[in-house]
């Protein structure tokens, strides 16, 4: 008997070994969407605090927002949990009707009370992204009276600043406008923290998926919500697997152990182009790459000098060589493809023009400066190309590369000459970028408007400030669009910025997987239409 057992055991082991080894050949399960992504940036899952790229897209799939862009039509702002809305009180009050019959993942009904509480919670917690809505004049003290439910399905939102209602509606499509299940979250409240501790690693939404697990630097698992208002998602589960090394992502994709690789380098994309089982999709994103000159610098503070920089950079040759496929030339502060974007690119390398500008500024003999940039690709490569470009105008540029965590404190303290960095909108309204690039109401060092790019570069301009405020408050949508176009054109000629490129995200997927949608903003990524053949 015991001999027989031993033999069975050994047989079992052998079979299991063969099965185990065999399983490396198998594809991912047909009801599960597995993607490899560098997810080391995740620090919280709470929509009141989320401001990172990866979690931005995750919460977009977990929570419905008050207003939304849907994957079926990424250009049009529609109601999320809001069925309809009405603007009154000279544009200062918006009354939303909430869709009836919506349910959270917990089974609780979605009430106007939940929506109001979600916004109040963001204002009271006052984490980094809170400014998106506190700019309307909301504070912890007044938000309860300005944002309130008047009945089960009616929400009244009032602002105290003169903002255009179009802007308010756009801002209410941002992550901070995610609708959170009040009852569930408050059942996990600790010491009046509004459920902050709990919601960091849990979810309480009404969106297409719910958060099943988050293991930092390892895996995020989302589970489909079969009762979603647009119908059950195509996949039962979505898995984001942390694979930091792009080469490993490529191998996993080629072996069909994952369905999608999110962080391939241009070389790797080239390497798999011939593979008929893999498709490469390009999605224009809202991230722009720009250089900025510190206006407090004795030389860089002169407008002719910055204008000369714009003429020295060879945008085309970078976009056609090492940036090919991943970046396109873009020269205004609002990303192309979005409403009110200025798509014109007036600058090409023109060394003669640059030299005469430098001469006019009194720096015909050249000067020396330092470019600070990030360590990750493509920033060092761009900095090197720019270095060579500037040398043509007699400018000697030194390059210093730093991790973001070291670079940003320098930038926020105005300790740079030239910075080469990126920027992406916080929400889909041109005000998001205009407020950063063009609007600096207090240029004093003590003012510490550290979130404002113009302030970080010690640059303030009366006409630019005025136009930014005017466009922000404009009620007429066509006029508003024209004002933003004018503002972008203005900043193409003056100001500290040399705007260079716009990102094009390259995503590699197995061809049997379809329906992945990635829109122009970082949090417009949708998993619910993904299907497998």
């Amino acid at each position, binding site marked *: 008997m015991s001999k027989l057992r031993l033999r069975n055991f050994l047989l*079992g*082991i052998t079979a*299991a*070994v063969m*099965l*185990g*080894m065999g*399983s*490396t*050949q*198998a594809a*991912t*399960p047909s009801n*599960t969407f*597995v993607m490899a992504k560098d997810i*080391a940036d995740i*620090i*919280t899952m709470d929509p009141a605090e989320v*401001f*990172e790229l990866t979690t931005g897209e995750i919460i977009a799939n977990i929570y419905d927002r008050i207003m939304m862009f849907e994957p079926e039509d990424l250009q049009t702002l529609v109601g999320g949990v809001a069925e309809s809305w009405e603007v009154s009180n000279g544009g200062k009050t918006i009354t939303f009707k909430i869709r009836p019959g919506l349910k959270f993942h917990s089974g609780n009904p979605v009430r106007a009370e939940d929506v109001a509480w979600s916004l109040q919670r963001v204002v009271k917690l*006052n*984490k*980094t992204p*809170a*400014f998106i809505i506190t700019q309307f004049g909301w504070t912890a003290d007044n938000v309860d009276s300005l944002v309130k439910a008047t009945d089960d399905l009616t929400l009244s939102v009032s602002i105290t600043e003169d903002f255009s209602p179009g802007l308010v509606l756009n801002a209410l499509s941002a992550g901070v406008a995610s609708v959170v299940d009040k009852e569930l979250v408050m059942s996990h409240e600790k010491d009046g923290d509004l459920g902050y501790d709990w919601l*960091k*690693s849990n979810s309480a939404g009404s969106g297409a998926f719910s958060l099943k*697990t988050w*293991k*930092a*630097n*390892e*895996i995020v*698992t989302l589970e489909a919500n079969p009762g979603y208002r647009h119908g059950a998602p195509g996949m039962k589960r979505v*898995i984001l*697997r*942390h*694979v*930091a*090394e792009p*080469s*490993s992502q490529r*191998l*996993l994709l*080629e*072996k069909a*152990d994952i369905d999608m690789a999110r962080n391939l380098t241009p070389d790797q994309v080239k390497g798999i182009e011939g593979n008929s089982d893999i498709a490469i999709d390009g999605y224009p994103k809202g991230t722009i790459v720009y250089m900025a000159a510190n206006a407090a610098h004795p030389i860089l503070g002169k407008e002719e000098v910055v204008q000369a920089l714009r003429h020295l950079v060879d945008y085309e040759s970078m976009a056609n060589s090492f940036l090919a496929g991943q970046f396109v030339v873009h020269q205004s502060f609002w990303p192309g493809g979005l409403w009110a974007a200025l798509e014109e690119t007036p600058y090409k390398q023109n060394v003669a023009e640059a030299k005469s500008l430098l001469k006019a500024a009194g720096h015909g003999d050249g000067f020396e400066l330092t470019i600070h940039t990030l360590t990750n690709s493509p920033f060092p490569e761009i900095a090197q190309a720019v270095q060579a470009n500037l040398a043509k105008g007699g400018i000697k540029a030194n390059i210093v590369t730093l*991790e*973001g*965590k*070291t670079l*940003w*404190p320098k*930038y*926020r303290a105005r300790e740079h000459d030239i910075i080469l960095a990126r920027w992406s909108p*916080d929400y889909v309204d041109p005000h998001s970028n205009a407020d950063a690039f063009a609007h600096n109401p207090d240029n004093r060092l003590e003012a*510490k*408007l*550290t*979130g404002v790019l113009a302030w970080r570069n010690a640059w303030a301009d009366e006409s630019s400030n005025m136009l930014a405020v005017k466009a922000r408050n404009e009620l007429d949508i066509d006029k508003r669009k024209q004002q933003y176009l004018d503002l972008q054109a203005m900043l193409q000629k003056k100001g500290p910025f040399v705007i260079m490129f716009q990102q094009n995200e390259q995503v590699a997927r197995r061809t049997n997987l379809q329906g992945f949608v990635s829109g122009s903003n970082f949090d417009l990524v949708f998993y619910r239409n993904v299907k497998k053949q």
Partner: protein
Amino acid sequence: MDQASSSKAAGPGPALPSKLVKISGVLVSLTLTFLGLTAITFVISRVMPVDPVLAIVGDRASNEVYQQVYLQLGLDKPIYIQYLRYLGQLAEGDLGTSIMTAQPVIEDIKRFFPATLELATIATLLGIFIGVPMGVFAAVHQGRWPDHIVRVVALLGYSAPIFWLGLVALLVFYAKLGWVAGPGRLDVFYDGIIEPVSGILMLDAALARDWDIFYNALSHLILPASILGTFALAYIARMTRSFMLDQLSQEYILTARVKGIPESQVIWRHAFRNVLVQLITIIGLTYASLLEGSVLTETVFSWPGIGQYITNSLFNNDMNAVLGGTIVVGACFVGINMLSDLLYRLVDPRIR
């Protein structure tokens, strides 16, 4: 063996007080070691030009939000107050909360450390069971072709960049041949099925008698463990070889050979026993350094280990996590040192 009797004189049961003195001596030196370790790490973390507040609030935060977190973290207090406060928490067994993972650091370590432990243990075992015989073999055939082969292999294993070796191994054994599973600890559809008991997947799977998961975990482990094992093996083989050469040229070996003792006994019983103490030292050090986690291997193989955890924490200036990780690594070194001390006593009667 023969000289053992001399040390026996001090042997039978030292008086109880002296034992207590010894133990308390060890405790004091342990405490000092950890105090030094935390103090140095703490100071380094504060002089680095990185801003821990920005790690939490992001680079776009307004000054108001920034100040709020700055005060929450107690960064306005002098550094020694911050340090004392940290020590106070530590004494209560609280390592703080990680910024990166939003979990208590102790929970993170419970999750990441077993992954490294699993990898480092298998790698060290490979190093011992292949490296030691290789080293002995090379020493015995010094100057002839087996020696040259072992030396070249050891040199390669020691000098080839582990990052490159890992990628090539993945390409060959995973992508081309399909013999083993790819990056990660488990295939995704096995994830979260078994309850973590020890955190060591193979052990947990065996306990749960889930052999599919056991072999899947094994299949994922083989490649990274072998890569790390190559490194351990190369080092151990080289050291074994040189220790053995040293012993084999001693006069007592000549005596033994003259007495007509069989060669295998001369090598294994006479020469090898005398290199054991040295070998234990370097094996202990190798194991300890592997337990720190190998960042490159962990990155290439998407292995959620302590090395990646500490490195990522450093990049994010997540000081609670860095300090917690450092303490664990420090504890490993101390623990392995004590274990080595114990083993010395077992193999070398003179130290008893």
